[in-house]
């Protein structure tokens, strides 16, 4: 706990700019509204409540993260929002209309990339435009031209004719983002999209994502278990707790925009991280000790 001896402001303290920004966000229309969402699984041990009374709303062009300890049902939540699983109770409203089942207006980026391996990068990005039949976007271009524009946006112009197996993990995920965005979804759901990437690639992808979000009319709901990632990217963070998965707190991130990696050490950032740590890893009375017997020579100490 010594590192926390540094004086940190409350994570609720917001600078004038940040406060003004949140005021502007609340003036925007609500895109996604989740009302008292519940999910129960039937297992051999009886019914298990994975999610209970989860409620929150996401406003247009907001970046919202969902974070929580493992087993808090955050993946179940995003899968229900995407329509890939059914909720047991509650409702999901998109632009005020209830939704059920998957649909192109809720794009999804998965941790495992899920690119179609038999299609080139270009064809992957064209997939959504072709199957949903909205081949003419606002620009009135052809499907292919539109797909090429999205590929250019994620910086993969030279790889348009490559197959997924020829790309690195970070490149695959950029294709997956372009593919989801090409459909112009009302909300982009991202299920731990950078979880499988190494630290450097992940940092790069976070910066790409912020750039895309700034320039594209898209609302993002992002799932992660990485606290830094959540703070760095989000306007607000929904903190879930486990057994059952419930909303513990919705945190307005006091870190100013535009975001940059230097802010990782800013006081607002650290204050928010401290709060998240408290919520997700509550302090225990004693640290759990492993029953290890000494197997080194006396005096051969490493601390």
């Amino acid at each position: 706990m010594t590192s926390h001896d540094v004086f940190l402001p409350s994570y609720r303290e917001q600078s004038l700019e940040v406060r003004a920004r949140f005021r502007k966000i609340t003036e925007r229309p609500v895109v996604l509204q989740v009302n008292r969402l519940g999910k129960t699984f039937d297992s051999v041990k009886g019914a298990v409540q994975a999610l209970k009374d989860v409620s929150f709303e996401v406003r247009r062009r907001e970046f919202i993260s969902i974070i929580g300890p493992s087993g808090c049902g955050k993946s179940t939540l995003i899968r229900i929002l995407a329509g890939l699983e059914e909720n047991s109770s509650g409702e999901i409203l998109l632009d005020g209309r209830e939704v059920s089942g998957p649909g192109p207006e809720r794009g999804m980026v998965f941790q495992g990339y899920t690119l179609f391996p038999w299609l080139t990068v270009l064809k992957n990005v064209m997939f959504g435009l072709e199957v949903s039949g909205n081949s003419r976007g606002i620009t009135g271009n052809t499907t292919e031209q539109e797909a090429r524009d999205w590929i250019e946006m994620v910086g993969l112009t030279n790889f348009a004719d490559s197959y997924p197996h020829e790309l690195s993990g970070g490149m695959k995920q950029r294709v997956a983002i372009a593919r989801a965005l090409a459909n112009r979804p009302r909300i982009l759901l991202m299920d731990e999209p950078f979880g499988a990437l190494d630290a450097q690639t992940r940092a790069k992808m976070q910066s790409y994502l912020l750039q895309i979000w700034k320039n594209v009319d898209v609302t993002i709901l992002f799932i992660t278990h990485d606290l830094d990632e959540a703070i760095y990217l989000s306007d607000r963070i929904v903190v879930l707790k486990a057994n059952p998965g419930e909303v513990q707190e919705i945190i307005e991130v006091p870190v100013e925009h535009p975001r940059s990696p230097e802010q990782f050490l800013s006081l607002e950032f650290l204050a928010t991280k401290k709060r998240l740590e408290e919520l997700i890893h509550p302090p225990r009375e004693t640290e759990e000790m492993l029953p290890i017997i000494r197997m080194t020579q006396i005096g051969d100490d490493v601390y």
Partner: protein
Amino acid sequence: MARARYFIIWKELDPKRRRVFQLFSFIIPLVIWAIISYCPVVWHPMVKVSDPGEIAHFKVDAMILKEAFHRENAKALEQHRRPAIGAPANPVYLPAPHEVAASFYKAFVTPPRLPDEPWLHQSLWHSITVIIWGFLISSAVAVPLGILCGTYRLFSYLTEPFVEFFRYLPAPAFAALAVAVLGIYDGPKVAIIVIGTFFQQVLMIANTTQRLDPALLEAAQTLGARGIKLFSRVVIPGILPDVYRDMRILLGWAWTYLIVAEVVGNSTGITWFINQQAKYRIYDNVYAAIIMIGIIGLTTDLVLAWIGSQLFTWKSRKKSVLSRLSAAYASSSKVKPGFSQETP
């Protein structure tokens, strides 16, 4: 060090060594066969008589069991008759490699004994057509059905239990029935191959279809694909390379039913040829014909494997010949205008 490298689990060998060992997989059985055929001390239970001497019932080129030969010679010597002379030989049913090799040519140019009997190439072609028809008919129904079973639970429950039951019924058991229904010509033969292939095929294709990555279906749904488009744009292309591989395996199985199928009704094809040659005790032709089946099967599979690697380039890391050719053409056509500018 170098020797130990062969015994690292799953360790791939370098291409040169790999090819050498692959070649050895054929050379080793050949060498064993050659040793048995050409070393008189190995096996050789017979004696081929070259000079019968004064033993009445020995004839030139007669094959006599070694013990009998020595016994008769000993008896002849006792009675002051001239003994026979002969060389150790293997039984007639084990010809030497060079004899079988010669048969590959000989069998094709030997005219049939009766004027209405087929030549070897006609018999072989007959066998191939029976296989092709059986496999095509089976695939035409089994592939769509298997894909449906692997995709929709409805079809799976509706067909798979019965198919599981039926695949335990040996195809040759239907021989008599097939003749009664389809006559004695090619009908029942094709039917045996269909029965032998179809049920395995349905289950195999269904199983392959079920192994499609479900995450791809989920991704497609979040992109707006549903119903028939989900089926035609995700399920079908996703399983195609694996279905193709299944078909290669199944085609090999179809060949194993051929020999049974060809003795149903009137015997035809390569089986008829083999049985006929065995009847005349021309065993080198029998071996040649059996090896021909292997060569046809292996060649077909290698050709199909190559075609598969060209069709499904996204699976392998290699570029197809076609795309390499078109790339070469594109680059050469780019060069041409340059030349024409230099030489106006």
